[in-house]
């Protein structure tokens, strides 16, 4: 009855709820708790060309309604992911999106080239916004020109849908969004984490081994929602909203702000079944409100609003 399906850059999803990169491992970690096929799409941990060791622990610090993480893109590298993880996910009936990260433009390109021939990969999410590594992409995400150049080049080496993940640590996210769209992005993901920190007053030291980390969780939702609202007003490509989504209501806020789909990150840590609960809750909301198709409420909160 209720149609929750959406399409992002040619990727057909049975519902608009995806896993957020880095918060759902490579999927397998959650199979005890849910059926991967229930997800709208599965976005895996940020993957680099070479293996990455990651940052010095502690890497997690709980804050008021949020967490700081400084994982620092620890991952086994693309070759290992292709060998060890993708085959497992290949047989699951769920769109698979690989999140790629790098320090250098050449590495991004090499990653895209490597993944391009793989049929089982439905799209690439280009992380130009990781705040947790010295050269981890955020330099790309906070500078219009390098973001543009990167996306243009990537566009030329792969036919896979390119989803560009934006950083919220910027003065004007709309400017970057427009530039990246112009450069050839098929969709935009926002937001990545906000750069933050915490200090342990008893030890008189930063809590995180890496001093700063990325803030996620319900604390950041108002900021994320505002950015999705601002960006989706201006761009034509679909926007994937994320940042603090814990409940179906939260997800609906993003859809009503103009997002086509949403991703769920930190919530998985609180409830391993969060994604499924959110999907179910959205379906119930639509049912209760006699809405047959999720696309009907996309951007609904914008109507009669002027800024």
């Amino acid at each position, binding site marked *: 009855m209720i149609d929750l399906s959406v399409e992002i850059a040619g990727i057909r999803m049975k519902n608009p709820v995806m896993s957020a990169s880095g918060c759902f*491992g490579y999927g397998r970690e959650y199979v*005890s708790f849910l059926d991967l096929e229930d997800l709208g799409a599965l976005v895996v941990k940020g993957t680099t060309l070479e293996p990455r060791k990651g940052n010095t*622990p502690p*890497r*997690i610090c709980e804050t008021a309604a949020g967490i700081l*993480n400084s994982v620092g893109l*620890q991952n086994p590298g693309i070759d290992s992911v292709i060998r060890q993880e993708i085959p497992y996910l290949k047989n699951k009936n769920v769109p698979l999106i690989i999140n790629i990260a790098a320090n250098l433009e050449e590495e991004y390109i090499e990653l895209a080239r490597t993944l391009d021939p793989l049929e089982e990969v439905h799209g690439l999410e280009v992380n130009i916004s990781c705040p947790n590594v010295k050269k981890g992409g955020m330099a790309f995400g906070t500078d219009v020109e390098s973001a543009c150049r990167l996306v243009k080049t990537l566009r030329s080496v792969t036919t896979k849908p390119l989803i560009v993940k934006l950083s919220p640590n910027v003065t004007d996210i709309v400017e970057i969004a427009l530039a990246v769209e112009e450069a050839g992005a098929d969709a935009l993901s926002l937001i990545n984490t906000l750069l933050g920190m915490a200090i342990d007053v008893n030890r008189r030291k930063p809590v995180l081994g890496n001093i700063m980390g990325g803030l996620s*969780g319900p604390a950041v939702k108002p900021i994320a929602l505002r950015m999705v609202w601002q960006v989706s007003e201006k761009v034509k490509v679909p926007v994937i909203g994320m940042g603090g989504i814990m409940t179906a209501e939260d997800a609906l806020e993003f859809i009503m702000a103009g997002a086509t789909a949403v991703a769920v990150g930190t919530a998985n*840590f609180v409830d*391993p079944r969060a994604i499924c609960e959110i999907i179910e809750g959205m379906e119930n909301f639509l049912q209760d409100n006699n809405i047959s198709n999720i696309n009907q409420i996309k951007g609904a909160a914008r109507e009669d609003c002027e800024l």
Partner: protein
Amino acid sequence: MSFSIKAEITAHVKKAAGLYRLDLYAPEISSEVQPGQFVHLRVRDGGYDPLLRRPFSIYDTNKSRGEISIIYRVVGRGTSILALRPPHDKLDLMGPLGRPFTFWEEDEKVILVAGGVGMAPLYLLVKALLKKGVHVKVLLGARTEGELVGTEDLQELKLKPCVATEDGSAGFKGLVTELLKEKLGENSFHRLYTCGPRPMLKEVARVAADFQLKGEVSLEEIMACGVGACLGCAFPIKTGEKGAQETVYKKVCAQGPAFSLEEVIYD
């Protein structure tokens, strides 16, 4: 297999100042758990304060009643809230999680070293070892008598733990690692298992190495997901051959909490 369930509190008792034992009805977990595994629980239902779950070792099980027990110390906000939960309340529980301790069939005599609430993952191990007919020596350390965990429960298993307290309020006055040195001097063991505060673990590992005793350690690190998905709970571990050793970060929640004593980098 792990489960995400709502588990009813069947008993919740204060064992000493700031120390609680919590019994939960969780038959799925009770029947699956192996020594050294843990549960990841929400101290409060709903709300975002605190946001994350808290990990606790499974201290004991009562399979016939479908129960598991944890023993915890109140150290911060989460455990303070947990301590207020009354019997019959239901807790959001994930488990059993993590890599359990390893058993070696050839072991006949093992020694366990627990620092304070570090006894928590070891008690189930003691029971399993005894069942296999292994001779088990337990050393318990704490700052003071009130912080000792498991003494009575061990006595029920007919074990007499050797106790060390820093203030001398019970047993040997001093560090449990001094006691360990003494015991290892007197007797030889096939294996050592340990859990406790980091400085203690470091010293235990050093002493064990001196005596060329191998073993396992249960580590703690702040956790987010508890299932290996977030890479938040990384601990530095040595890999590779001697000489060409490298440090990698392993996940305490999924590749541990049990690690081999020698591979861990303690500081």
